[in-house]
């Protein structure tokens, strides 16, 4: 019934719009409107071009004003993060300058050279010097930007194994993350989906007889000691997933049939991040929003929302099915002592199995 009523309403609205358009159109009858743009049209639309330019600039300014602290371009929690943020800011600055200037020229010329009867256009077919200039300048600027980018990319992607990074497996499946530490020997035991044994609680398919697996630790909440380089070895059990850790500026697909990797060094503990001024503001803002939303919820007899406390997160960022939107794991960065204490409480892989 509701569906029927909705369709009827939509139809009425459509008819109303149709009528309005017809009225508008009929109101034009009698006016000597030419079928193509005349001087009056050119004048109006010419001025509109400048209005629209102002609109573009205003939308830009408003976006920065209201949404400007959303982008993750500062306060990166990894060693490579600040370098990457620098590259981002420089690139953004560059494209903003180009955007501002070119939009101005385009819309200003559209206004300034709006057509008028009697005016004649300038026959200006080409100029090779100009073409050369605006080929070579973008080339040089982009080359500089890209070279900088490639150095940054190399820094991030080339994991220096000499620094003895901590090896951690990130295991993705529909719709859950699990992490596995290499343990004392910092070597992950061999694993394959064919070894998965749900009854035995061997959900990652780790080879039970592999000596390296004996000290492995399987967890559902990722802890990292600050200042220690980690290299994540990613696996997926079923479909493509992506390990996205935005605060660390890290992302890598998890591919079934393949082990992918991404490494970084966390530099800010969860505690310190929570206390950083930017994060305090952000959390305050979010909790304000949550309080507002909770008012509405309790009014409808629903449960209010819990207040938010910042935590690093691992999110899935490659479409993986129905609950793709809710596949997350908490990441805690802490001091070496705290980490050791936490690790001591975890069961080793053999002890975690059902006998």
């Amino acid at each position, binding site marked *: 019934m509701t*569906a029927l009523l909705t*369709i009827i309403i939509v139809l009425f609205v459509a008819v109303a*719009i149709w009528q309005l*358009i017809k009225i*508008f159109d009929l109101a034009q009858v009698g006016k000597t409107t030419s079928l*193509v*743009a005349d001087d009056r049209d*050119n004048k109006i639309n*010419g001025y*509109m071009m400048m209005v629209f330019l102002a*609109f573009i600039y205003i939308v830009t300014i408003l976006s920065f004003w*209201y*949404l400007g602290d*959303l*982008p*993750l371009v500062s306060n990166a929690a990894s060693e490579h993060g600040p370098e*990457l943020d620098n*590259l981002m800011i420089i*690139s953004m600055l560059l494209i903003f300058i180009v955007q501002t200037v*070119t939009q101005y020229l385009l*819309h200003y*010329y*559209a206004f300034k*050279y*709006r*057509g008028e009867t009697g005016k004649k*256009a*300038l*026959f200006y*077919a*080409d100029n090779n010097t100009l073409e050369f200039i605006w*080929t070579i300048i*973008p080339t040089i600027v982009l080359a500089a*930007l*890209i070279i900088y*980018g*490639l150095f*940054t*990319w190399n820094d*991030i992607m*080339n994991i220096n194994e000499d620094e003895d990074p901590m090896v951690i497996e990130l295991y993705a499946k*529909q719709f859950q993350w699990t992490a596995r530490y290499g343990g004392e020997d910092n070597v992950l035991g061999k694993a394959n*989906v*064919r070894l998965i044994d749900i009854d035995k609680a061997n959900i990652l*398919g780790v080879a039970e007889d592999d000596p390296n697996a004996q000290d492995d630790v399987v967890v559902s909440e990722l802890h990292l000691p600050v200042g220690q380089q980690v290299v994540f070895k990613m696996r997926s059990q*079923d479909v493509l997933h992506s390990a996205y850790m935005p605060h660390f*500026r*890290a992302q890598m697909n998890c591919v079934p*049939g*393949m082990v992918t990797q991404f490494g970084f060094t966390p530099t800010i503990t969860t505690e310190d991040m929570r206390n950083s001024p930017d994060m305090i503001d952000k959390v305050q*803002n*979010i909790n304000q929003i949550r309080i507002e*939303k909770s008012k509405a919820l309790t009014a409808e007899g629903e449960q209010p*929302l819990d207040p*938010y406390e910042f935590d690093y997160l691992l999110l*899935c*960022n490659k*479409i993986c*099915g129905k609950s*793709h939107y809710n596949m997350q794991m908490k990441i805690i960065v802490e001091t070496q002592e705290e980490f050791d204490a936490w690790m001591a409480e975890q069961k080793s892989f053999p002890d975690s199995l059902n006998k």
Partner: protein
Amino acid sequence: MSATLDTHGHDDHDVHHHKETFVTKYIFSQDHKMIAKQYLITGTIMGVIGVLMSIMFRMQIAWPEKPNVLFEALLGKWAPDGVMDADIYLALVTIHGTIMVFFVLTAGLSGTFSNLLIPLQIGARDMASGFLNMISYWLFFVSSVIMVISLFVEAGPAAAGWTIYPPLSALPMAQGGSGMGMTLWLVSMAIFIASSLLGSLNYIVTIINLRTKGMSMTRLPLTIWAFFVTAILGVISFPVLLSAALLLIMDRSFGTSFFLSDIFIQGEVLHYQGGSPVLFEHLFWFLGHPEVYIVILPAMGLVSEIMATNSRKPIFGYRAMIMSILAIGFLSTIVWGHHMFISGMNPFLGSVFTFTTLLIAIPSAVKAFNWITTIWKGNLQLNPAMLFSIGFVSTFITGGLTGIILGDSALDINVHDTYFVVAHFHLVMGISALYGMFAGIYHWFPKMFGRMLNKNLGYLHFWVTAICAYGVFFPMHFIGMAGLPRRYYTNSNFPLFDDTANANVIITMFAIVGGLFQLVYLWNFFYSIFYGKKTTKNPWKSTTLEWTTEVKHIHGNWEGAIPHVHRWPYDYSNPFHDVDFIPQNVPMKEGEEELHH
């Protein structure tokens, strides 16, 4: 009329009148002008479906899990009590992308204008093969029908994103839509690809072989150059997507392991061994990247033509424009890996693709500067088509610039698969290319239908759309850079993203207004086909050959002989002549030289 070198036996027919039935005129037509209109109408209908889907999923994002009468009315079992199901959200996003990229912006843009303009602008009676042309359209029609049918499948339509990466798209147990929905998607796309290939072959052969006397390659309007390179790109890249689709069909139905290996799902290990999803990504994007240039190049060609006509001066840098079309075409085949920086492929490849992607920014920049210089010191006739063309350049610049961020592999790490990417490609495709399509429709409507679109409604259409377009996609960059992933049914599971909720509401509101406002355009379009003011032969005072034909369509385009071409297409405000413009078929004066390099 002098006896002309008509290479086509076809010509003799045109003086006689074929006995035409309703079916041979309107349904199974072999006339390129009718086929163009068929593409346009079908593309428009698919576009309406695509926009409706986007309004629905945008409403879901803005007001998550809130009961909604629209969902209840349109989604049936997929919105119990008016709350959208998570699976159908992914399906909507998938089919929206598929329809818009392929059915609207490829078939609807290229299909319409290549068909309409190639024979008319090069001076040919029709395409090289009218029969193959007819088949191309009908294959497109059938693929559209199949895609729409897939929406009604029990377990849901394809829902793995328009990029349909396996294993998600290969395994029905991974997702409902990966059953029959995905099968129908693949069948539809295979037929679509066949349609596209046949069309492209026709366009290439026609442009090479059927140009009229005097129409050398360097006297071709830029539209033709754009359609030519687009068609070549299509022929090179679409077969690779077809191969990916066929291999996927084999993995799905015949137990092969091209893309699958080591999978444990729903409690059991599957038999697949040795394949790689990354292979699919390579095959997909080998088409996928050229595809976006297949979308934008025709729009660029249309806009160049429209801007020159409406500026009453030549397109600036005609040769440079041709070179940049060729450069963009070539380079677009070697940048596909920039969609795969964090796919798990060797990071060295990432460096290579960053480099080639940098290169492709350059001819694009040259074109943008050339368009701006075209309007400089022009006498701008701000018709709706011209407004859309200016809007095309504006949004192409904005969208293209963010491409520089995304093409830089290091920067892609934190914005890959976020709303930043969504904002980028919508600005360049969803807005810029769409504006190009609108510009083409407003400009060539009189040629297609013998009547004019209502000018004032056109202005209204442009300005409201332009405002809404910016309102939707500009803020989206910011929430993307905040780390908000795309393809999330709801963001409410992450308190971290609660501060993006307001932006999402604003985006959705602009989207609803902008989407609904297209009704104004649709009304104008369909009304004007029947009741629009009748047009004159050359309402825009353009130099190209299509405006030398009669308003009423005839097979073979020209009553008598095909005109011969004596000059390039941009003799507007030529200082050595008194007239405002000189059509291409007007002979040179005594001692006149072609006034360009």
